[in-house]
């Protein structure tokens, strides 16, 4: 289990590969990996978005994501999880968030992965501010889970 909150740009695929190679004890045990990657789009609610600032609550954010990962590991038959979230100044097409779950079977992997991203989006203390051509605006709510 690993949780990272970082101001540095990261490549989701490289991070997944690097983390997976550390799971030596579980090699051969997992048959399913479900991942979700959220990246910054260059538009939102009809407006072009030039950049974004992602604020968080240092300390609480990490604590919340650790507890969330523990909950996922208890609630589903999964072997491991990885959560990485970017903060600070972000450019379009940058990776914002990565969640992943390793499991023996696919249903648990999918459900745990979906749980991680939905809980993160609705409860982890992060706030997005969009930098538009004409000024800035705080994002007031996320896209609902059903869209």
């Amino acid at each position: 289990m690993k949780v990272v909150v970082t101001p540095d740009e990261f490549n989701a695929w490289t991070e997944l590969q690097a983390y997976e190679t550390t799971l030596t004890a579980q090699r051969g045990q997992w048959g399913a990996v479900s991942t979700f990657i959220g990246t910054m789009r260059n538009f939102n609610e009809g407006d072009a978005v030039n950049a974004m600032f992602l604020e968080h609550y240092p300390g609480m954010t990490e604590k919340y994501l650790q507890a969330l990962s523990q909950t996922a590991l208890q609630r589903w038959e999964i072997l491991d999880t990885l959560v990485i979230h970017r903060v600070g100044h972000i450019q379009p097409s940058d990776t914002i968030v990565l969640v992943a779950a390793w499991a023996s079977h696919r249903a648990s992997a999918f459900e745990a992965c979906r749980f991680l991203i939905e809980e993160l989006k609705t409860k982890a203390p992060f706030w997005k501010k969009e930098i538009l051509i004409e000024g800035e605006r705080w994002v007031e709510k996320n896209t609902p889970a059903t869209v």
Partner: protein
Amino acid sequence: MMTIKVKFFASLREEVERSEVDLKPQGEMTVAQVWALACQDMPLPEHILSAVNLEYVSADTAVKDGDEVAFFPPVTGG
């Protein structure tokens, strides 16, 4: 006398025009009373979330000496 650290985040931080304030109240307080003291009796907006010592709490939670109390708008990460 207690010492309470109060933090504000995101749009709320901009609205109240500060990110952090240290309070030195005389006696026991709830989260709602911490807000009132920190924000000159401005009403606590309904959508604002609160945390004590990095955990979500409701506004009627009691605050102890040395606690960190945070107020912030609905989250929009991910």
